[in-house]
């Protein structure tokens, strides 16, 4: 081959080499050929690292805030507990003081009855001196225990507890944010990994990895911004203060003022579920059942979907006469907490009022069986019964009695009953209610006294009660007319009969009546039978008037039972006699208002 030809060939080779380098890049000093990706990948990684730094900062900020709110909330909760305990000690002392003063007043009255004025004055002076030892007896409380309680600790500790709860809510909010930032950081690391992997592949694979990584970063940025801008829940101090004030007023029974306070709290903080719940309770107390139900719905919407809210809402629906809704809400309450026995009774009552008598009977039976099992378990060392267990049973029975009275046309003013026209099949419902009330009343007494259901009916027959007072009960005299038996409250044979002229028979007595005698004829009573007297005042039992005895009279005859009414409030007094846990007779008299 000619040299020139060889040189040409080599030039061609050299030319191809240069073309090759240009096409495929690389080689010494090949900046011009470096792909776009290589130049920008470093910038991208740095940018993402910066973004990670921002996220870490935000996560740390959220975590710090969460920790601060958690600490503050715990501190307030502990503080509230301590102040409540201290406040309760003060209130307990005030109660003891009231007790001592009451004793001294009884002794002063007795001395006055006997004509010993010096002693009477001495007892009265001592009572005055002792009552001055507690602020309760003086202005502004003047013996109003509920006001004293509210001012000593209830309002303040409620305020602290609400602040603690608000702090807890903020803690959970910021913790949630912190957790989400951690998730974003994790996903950011994944996007970084995708970019890193993109440098190991070419063409389509690289494009896909870059695309996915970039899309992920965009999503994370949008998410981060949205998260940052999410507002924290806000409960102004003024709202909490109004709420605490409302709780204090409700404790005093000032329902109108309490309702106004809760409404003010809601105005300050519309998303205040506790305040909505209390607003519902006050409307319920004021018999505004529509407003009560609406308030409970708002509480649920605000996140307070609890058994207690549903319980009250179900009751409001029942009182409105919307029994189907009441049944639905009660079932929801039981789904949240099936151990709430009173809600089982409310459900059964709503079914009964709706005319679903068979379902109501089944529900009552199931609940009574559950109550029996719980008592047996507690008796054998199982879980303790709540202190309201028997009150709940009695409440269930009272609701049925109220329904019976309503359908008979003589509902009491204090009774909580639905509109009578809303009740389906009134005759059947009344009959079923009467029978179920009797069963509940007897079960309650039997379980309380014997921890077992009532035994077979004993066959005692008690005629209708007759209520009577003597002249000595109505006026204060110096003559002792106390009955001549060792325990003046014991059921006994009367010293004189009703027709002796000593007694005035009636069903309504003046406010200053000290004692009412309950006369009745009896037959078929077993000697040594277990006797219980229960007295309810406006539908609620007064436990101080409960008496348990062993029958010491004969199988048949006439008996008298005194009911002491010292310190008694005006109202409708229903007296019930139980013999061997069987309710054998009831009767009602009224103590008039002063």
């Amino acid at each position, binding site marked *: 081959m000619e040299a020139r030809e060889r040189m040409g060939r*080599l030039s061609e080779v050299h030319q191809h080499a240069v073309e090759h380098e240009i096409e495929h890049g690389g*080689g010494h000093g090949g900046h011009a050929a470096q792909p776009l990706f290589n130049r920008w990948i470093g910038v991208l990684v740095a940018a993402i690292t910066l973004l990670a730094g921002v996220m870490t900062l935000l996560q740390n900020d959220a975590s710090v805030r969460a920790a601060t709110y958690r600490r503050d909330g715990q501190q307030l909760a502990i503080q509230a507990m301590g102040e409540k305990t201290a406040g309760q000690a003060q209130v307990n002392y005030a109660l*003891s003081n009231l007790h001592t003063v009451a004793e001294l007043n009884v002794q002063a009255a007795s001395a006055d009855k006997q004509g010993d004025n010096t002693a009477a004055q001495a007892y009265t002076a001592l009572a005055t001196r002792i009552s001055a030892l507690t602020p309760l007896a003086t202005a502004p409380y003047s013996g109003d225990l509920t006001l004293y309680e509210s001012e000593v600790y209830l309002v303040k500790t409620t305020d602290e507890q609400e602040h603690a709860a608000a702090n807890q809510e903020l803690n959970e909010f910021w913790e949630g944010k912190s957790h989400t930032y951690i998730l974003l950081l994790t996903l950011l690391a994944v996007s970084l990994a995708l970019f890193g*992997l993109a440098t190991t592949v070419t063409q389509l694979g690289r494009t896909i990895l870059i695309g996915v990584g970039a899309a992920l970063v965009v999503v994370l940025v949008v998410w981060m911004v949205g998260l940052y801008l999410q507002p924290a829940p806000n409960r102004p101090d003024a709202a909490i203060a109004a709420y605490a004030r409302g709780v204090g007023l409700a404790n005093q029974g000032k329902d109108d003022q309490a309702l106004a306070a809760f409404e003010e709290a809601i105005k300050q903080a519309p998303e205040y579920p506790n305040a909505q719940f209390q607003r519902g309770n006050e409307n319920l107390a004021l018999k505004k059942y529509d407003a009560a139900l609406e308030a409970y719905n708002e509480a649920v919407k605000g996140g307070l979907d609890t058994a207690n809210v549903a319980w009250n809402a179900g009751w409001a629906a029942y009182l409105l006469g919307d029994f189907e809704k009441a049944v639905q809400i009660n079932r929801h309450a039981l789904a949240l907490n099936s151990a709430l026995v009173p809600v089982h009774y409310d459900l059964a009552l709503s079914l009964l009022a709706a005319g679903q008598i068979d379902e109501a009977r089944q529900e009552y039976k199931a609940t009574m069986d559950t109550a029996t099992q719980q008592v047996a378990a507690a008796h054998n060392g199982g879980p303790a019964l709540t202190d309201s267990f028997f009150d709940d049973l009695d409440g269930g029975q009272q609701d049925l009695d109220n329904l019976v009275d309503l359908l008979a046309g003589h509902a009491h003013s204090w009774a909580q009953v639905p509109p009578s026209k809303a009740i389906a099949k009134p005759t059947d419902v009344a009959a079923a209610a009467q029978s179920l009330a009797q069963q509940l009343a007897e079960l309650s007494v039997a379980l309380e006294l014997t921890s077992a259901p009532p035994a077979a009916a004993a066959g005692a027959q008690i005629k209708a009660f007759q209520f009577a007072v003597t002249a000595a009960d109505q006026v204060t005299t110096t003559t002792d007319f106390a009955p001549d038996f*060792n325990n003046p409250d014991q059921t006994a044979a009367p010293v004189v009969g009703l027709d002796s002229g000593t007694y005035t028979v009636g069903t309504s007595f003046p406010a200053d009546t000290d004692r009412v005698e309950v006369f009745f004829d009896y037959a078929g009573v077993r000697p040594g039978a277990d006797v219980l007297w229960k007295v309810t005042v406006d539908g609620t039992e007064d436990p101080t008037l409960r008496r348990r005895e062993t029958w010491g009279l004969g199988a048949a005859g006439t008996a008298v039972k005194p009911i002491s009414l010292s310190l008694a409030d005006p109202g409708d007094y229903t007296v019930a006699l139980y013999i061997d846990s069987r309710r054998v007779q009831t009767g009602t008299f009224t103590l008039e208002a002063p």
Partner: protein
Amino acid sequence: MENHDPAGSAPADPAAPGPGGHAADHAPHGPEAPAHGPEAGHGAAADHAPAAGHGAAADHAPAAGHGAAADHATAAGHGAAADHAAAGGHHSDPLKTVLSLLMAIVVVSGAVITWRSTLDGEEALREDTLGLTATVQAQGVQAQANATVYNHYEAYTGYLQHQEVGRLLGQAVTAILSGTVTDPAVQAQLPTLQQDRTDQYEIANTARSFFNPRYLTAAGSYDTKAELAGTLAAAAQGTDLQPARHFEEADKLRGKSTDFLWALLILGGALLCYTLPGALSAGAEGAQARRLQIPFMVLGLLLTLVAIGDALRIELLT
């Protein structure tokens, strides 16, 4: 053109003196030919280096580059670039792809496990807080319930005192009325005794308003235990009084968080297995390189599966 010497031996030296002694004319070109080999090789290697970016692919580039350089150096005409391309500068290695995927899986799994571990740790802290709150509440309820119950007990004590005094006075009244006592001085005290008895019973009755008569037993004593238990049971219906379950949950979550970290450690081992062969097999080619990579890859895969399996076990079964 055929590559007779793929090892990159020097081409036929055009500068080699031939007949006629024109070697001097070609001498400058002589060294250029071999110079193309390394240059082309370097260029070819450089081609692959950015494409690889990370270890494994770059490891393979020089071999391909040398092969391509040899092709290029011996090529005398067109098709050198095609030869170069055909010689394996962009040849797709399935093993590299699999390794890349495995590393991606390790990275993503590690991120997820770290996230779960952190969350469980935070949740444990939250449970601790709830447990402390329940402790405070339980103690508060205990203190208040005891204060109330013993306040009632104090009132019952007064009730018992006056009831018993009334009973004793009643016995004296009965003795006089039945004629057992005949002393006139004692008999003269009858109205006073009767009044005193009535007073004692009335004071006792007053005391009944300051305790819960429901807790009076048949024997006449006061069941403080039942009242305390009932008060606490009622409080428990609406308030969390059980810190133990929160603390148990917190301990469980902390254990989970720690267990996740062990899985993370295993993943770290897997990552090491994926990257180690690349460093160890520098210079090795083809089957020799594979003999080193595959065992490590298999080991890494096993460790990856163990770590992910363990993480799933922790998440789903604990």
